[in-house]
C-alpha cells in the first residue's frame, strides 16, 4: 500500500481510442453508439484506431454492430460472469485489458452504470477521469480535452490528463449524435477479437439478487417537451394533456420528481437528463441553474410562470405570466382545435 504512485509511464506507449459499449440484457445503451460516433472523429484526428469494448454474456452481436458503426476493432469479453453488470468483475477485466493493450483514451457513458464502472476502473489504472463531459476534443499533441459544465452550468471547465494514461471521460447521454450503422458490414466478425476472461465467479464480491427494468421512457429523443416544476402543485394533468396534443413528452424538475408528481426517468437537469428538443415548454419552473443546465440546448424555450420575476423568463424565447393550470389547458384546446380544422 505504501509504494509510491507507481512507475512513471511513457505516454507514447499508449495508443487508440476505446469506447466502452454499455449494454443491459444484450441491448446497447443509446449513449454507447453516441460515443462510438464521437470516438470515430477523435480517432481520425489523432490517426489512431477506434476500438469498441464489449463486455457481457452472449453479446457478440453488439461487437459486430460496433464495427458496423465505425469501430476499427472490437474487443469482446463474453462470459456469464459479466451478466448482469457488476462493478468488480467488469473492473478487473478492464484493468487486465488496459495493462496489456494500453489505450490512450477511454470514453464511457455518463449513466449510473457508466459512472459506477468508470470510478472503479480509473483507480487501478491510475487514469485521469473526468466526469459528465459535454464536449470532447483533442489538441495538437493528441491530448484529450474533456470539457464539462461547472458551477451549475455557468462555466465550462476543460480537463486534461498530461502524464497519466488512459485519459478517461464519462460523457453525458444525448450530447452527441449516434449516426446509423453501415449497411453491409461483411467483415464485421473478422474485426471482433475475443479476449481472455480473467474473472471467476467465486472471486466476485457481490451478487445481483433481482433486477427490475423496462417500460421506462426516454425523454432525450423527444422533439417537444412539456416540463413542470414546483408550480404544478401536485397536478400534472395540464402537462400530460399538452404533451399529448403536441406529440411530445412530459418532463420535470428535481423538485417535482422529489414530490413524486413525475417519475425520476423524466427529470431534466444537472442530476437528471440533458435534453435538446425543438420546443421546451417550462411550466411552473423558476429556472434554477441546475435545471437550466439540462435544457439550455433546446431550440425554442417557452416559460409559463405566475411570478413575473422568475429567472426562467430570462432564459426563454417566449414567456407568459400566468398559472400553468389555466394557460396550458387553454393552449391545449387551441392546439387541438387547429388540428381539427386542418384535418
Amino acid at each position: 500500500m505504501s509504494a509510491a504512485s507507481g512507475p512513471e509511464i511513457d505516454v507514447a506507449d499508449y495508443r487508440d481510442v476505446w469506447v466502452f459499449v454499455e449494454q443491459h440484457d444484450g441491448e446497447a445503451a443509446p449513449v454507447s453508439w453516441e460515443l462510438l460516433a464521437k470516438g470515430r472523429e477523435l480517432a481520425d484526428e489523432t490517426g489512431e484506431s477506434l476500438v469498441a469494448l464489449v463486455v457481457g454474456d452472449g453479446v457478440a452481436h453488439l461487437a459486430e454492430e460496433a464495427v458496423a458503426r465505425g469501430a476499427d476493432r472490437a474487443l469482446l469479453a463474453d462470459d456469464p460472469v459479466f451478466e448482469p453488470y457488476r462493478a468488480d468483475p467488469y473492473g478487473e477485466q478492464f484493468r487486465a485489458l488496459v495493462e496489456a493493450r494500453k489505450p490512450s483514451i477511454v470514453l464511457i457513458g455518463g449513466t449510473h452504470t457508466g459512472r459506477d464502472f468508470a470510478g472503479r476502473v480509473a483507480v487501478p489504472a491510475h487514469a485521469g477521469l473526468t466526469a459528465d463531459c459535454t464536449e470532447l476534443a483533442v489538441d495538437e499533441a493528441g491530448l484529450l480535452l474533456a470539457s464539462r459544465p461547472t458551477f451549475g452550468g455557468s462555466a465550462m471547465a476543460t480537463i486534461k490528463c498530461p502524464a497519466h494514461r488512459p485519459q478517461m471521460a464519462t460523457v453525458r447521454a444525448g450530447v452527441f449524435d449516434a449516426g446509423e450503422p453501415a449497411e453491409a458490414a461483411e467483415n464485421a466478425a473478422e474485426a471482433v477479437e475475443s479476449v481472455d476472461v480473467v474473472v471467476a465467479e467465486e472471486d466476485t464480491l457481490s451478487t445481483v439478487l433481482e433486477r427490475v427494468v423496462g417500460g421506462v421512457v426516454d425523454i432525450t429523443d423527444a422533439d417537444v417537451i412539456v416540463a413542470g416544476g414546483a408550480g404544478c402543485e401536485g397536478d400534472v394533468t395540464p402537462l400530460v394533456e399538452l404533451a399529448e396534443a403536441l406529440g411530445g413528452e412530459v418532463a420535470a424538475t428535481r423538485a417535482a420528481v422529489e414530490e413524486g408528481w413525475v417519475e425520476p426517468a423524466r427529470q431534466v437537469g444537472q442530476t437528471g437528463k440533458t435534453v435538446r428538443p425543438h420546443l421546451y415548454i417550462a411550466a411552473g419552473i423558476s429556472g434554477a441553474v441546475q435545471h437550466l443546465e439540462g435544457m439550455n440546448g433546446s431550440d425554442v424555450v417557452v416559460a409559463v410562470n405566475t411570478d413575473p420575476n422568475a429567472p426562467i423568463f430570462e432564459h426563454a424565447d417566449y414567456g407568459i405570466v400566468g398559472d400553468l393550470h389555466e394557460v396550458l389547458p387553454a393552449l391545449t384546446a387551441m392546439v387541438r382545435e387547429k388540428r381539427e380544422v386542418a384535418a
Partner: protein
Amino acid sequence: MNDGWNIVVCVKQVPDADDVTIDPDTGTLNRSDAPAVLNKPDHNAVESALALRDAVGGTVTAITMGPPPASAVLQAAVAAGADGGVLLTDRAFGGSDTWPTSLALARAAEELDADVVICGEESTDSSTGQVPPGIAAHNGWAQLTYTESLDPRPDEGVLVGTRDVEGGYERVAAALPVVVAMVFGANDPRPAGLHRKIFAETEFEPVQWTAADLDIEDRVGLANSPTKVGGMDTASPVERERTRVDSVEALYDHLAEVL
C-alpha cells in the same frame, strides 16, 4: 459480528449551492458570499449510517478531508448522531483530484476497520460521483452506488442495497467491507437532537490524521492527481428572444411558427 458494524460516513464541506446564481446577460457566476455547508447529498449518507447502526448496532464515525475549518461538517454529523469524527488534514492533500482523495478516504476507512463506508451520491461543487467507487477500488472492496435503500443481513455478513439503474432498480448483495453511495434524497434525515447538538458544539473534538499517519504522503496532492484543469471558459449564454406575451392566443401564434 456481535458488536455490530463499524460504519464510516464520508462527508464534505462545499459552498452552499443555493447561494450561487448566474447573471443571464454575462453568464458569470455570483457566488461571492456562498457560505460553506455540509454537502446536501451527505445528509442522506449520514441518515443511512445512523439507520444502519440502529438496525445492526456498532458505531458511526464521520470522516472528511480538508483544512481545519472543514471539521464543521464533522460537527454536523456528530450533532445528527455520529459517535465520532476524523479530520484528514495536511498540506500534502492540497490539489488532490478524485484519485488521491479516494485513496486518503480508503486508507482512513481501513484504519477504522470499517465494515461499511457510506457516502453521498456526489458533491454539489464537483459533481463527479467518482470518490465512492474510488474508495472501493483502492481497497478492493465491494461497491453499491446510486443506492436507494439498505437491507443489512449481519448473520450472513452481507449488505443488500437497492440500486437505481437505468430503467428500473436492482437489489445487490455485497460482501463486507462495502462502500455505499446513497442516492440524493433517498431518505429523510433526522433532525439533530438538542443534547447531541450541544455536545457537538462544545465538547466534540475530531481526531486528526495527516498523510503520513496514513502512510500515503508520497501518493496524494496535486503531483499525484492525473487530471489538471486546462482552462475555464465562461459558458456563452444562450441567446433567447425573451419576448413576453400577454395572451395564450399570442403564445399559440409564436408556437405555430416553430412547430
